[in-house]
């Protein structure tokens, strides 16, 4: 009995030592990470392809601590006002002490998804509220999760999209429409833009698709639409602009001159 009690006492002492030593060394390890500025953020990049916006945030992580940093998971939830646009989540491999991780946080969202959630931000700049949440585990035992709310500016890819000028030539039955917008997104966008014109009775006058590659800045695209049924042409009407099969904007046009 006495031996059992003695062994139990030793086990209890050993476990107390582990419990006291582990958080202290983990704290010291974290302090070393903070002092060494272990995380270095690089210039983010943006692109658009196949109807999808891609954002990439490259970073460098140098584990200057004593323990493995594992289960690294970064989740970003993007909101515009009350509307939740998307949730992105990236998992990164474990980083052993003395090693580095050079990688990027990638977030992709389709044009279709944005149009579904909040079409307004395709044609208007906005402040996007993001909740950035990062989780990691040190020494496989202690988990840390830091959450931060950050506001990020969003540059609309079709800012101020409008059919600025419509002219009708009865001789060749052509409607000439000028579509203008400013690409405020950080990279060029390319794809097929379709313009559909309707008269004041909402009858189709015709449509035309143009392949566009829009660099950041002001863009002017002209569409020549052959009207199949000239008597239907009215002085004003409605338009729909579709980009990569996604409805971007609807509005009113008016013949000038």
């Amino acid at each position, binding site marked *: 009995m006495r031996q*059992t009690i003695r062994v139990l006492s030793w086990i209890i002492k050993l476990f107390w030592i582990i419990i006291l030593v582990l958080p202290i060394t983990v704290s010291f390890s974290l302090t070393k990470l903070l002092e060494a500025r272990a995380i270095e953020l690089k210039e983010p990049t943006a692109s658009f392809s196949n109807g999808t916006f891609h954002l990439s945030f490259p970073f460098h992580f140098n584990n200057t601590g004593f323990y493995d940093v594992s289960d690294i998971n970064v989740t970003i939830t993007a909101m515009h006002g009350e509307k939740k646009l998307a949730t992105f989540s990236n998992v990164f491999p474990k980083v052993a002490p003395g090693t580095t991780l050079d990688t990027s946080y990638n977030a992709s969202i389709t044009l279709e998804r944005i149009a579904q959630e909040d079409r307004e931000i395709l044609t208007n700049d906005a402040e996007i509220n993001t909740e950035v949440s990062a989780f990691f585990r040190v020494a496989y035992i202690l988990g840390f999760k830091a959450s931060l709310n950050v506001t990020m500016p969003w540059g609309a890819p079709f800012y101020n999209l409008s059919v600025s000028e419509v002219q009708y030539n009865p001789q060749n039955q052509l409607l000439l429409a000028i579509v203008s917008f400013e690409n405020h997104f950080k990279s060029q966008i390319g794809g097929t833009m379709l313009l559909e014109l309707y008269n004041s009775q909402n009858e189709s006058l015709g449509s035309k698709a143009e392949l566009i590659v829009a660099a950041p800045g002001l863009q002017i695209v002209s569409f020549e639409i052959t009207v199949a049924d000239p008597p239907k042409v009215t002085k004003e009407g409605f338009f729909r602009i579709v980009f990569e099969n996604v409805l971007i904007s609807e509005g009113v046009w008016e013949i000038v001159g």
Partner: protein
Amino acid sequence: MGELGDLEAKENRLKRRLREILPRVLKALIITILEGLLLFFVWIFVGGLFGAYYEAGTLFTIFFWGMLFFIFTIRVSEGTIFKYGFVVARALFLIIYLIYATQGGVLTLDFAELHLTVEFVPLLGLMVFINVLDMMRGVLQAIEFTSMSPQD
């Protein structure tokens, strides 16, 4: 005469008991005060770390008075079977307290815009395990105490 002798004997027994108990109570009280002061100073030094945790003060008060109670009762009941009962009760108190105070091993601290969550479920598991071992040790010590003959 016989009654008077009984009363005297009772009084003597009471005096003897008091002479036995009073120093023990005083000793326990002094040790409790000293350990209480130690706990208080530890809190003064490390309490700032938990400043962001809004319930820290209340939780420490519960821990402080709980521990003082057990320090005192264990010291006072030294040499009796009750000591081991208090040892087991202390371990049980610590298990419940640790699980409650750490919200099951997940603590959330708010620093202005930053929300920090620390998850230490495995460590809490180890702390609970230690207290279970402490309870087992208390039970074994109680059995050993009762099985000891006066000659031991």
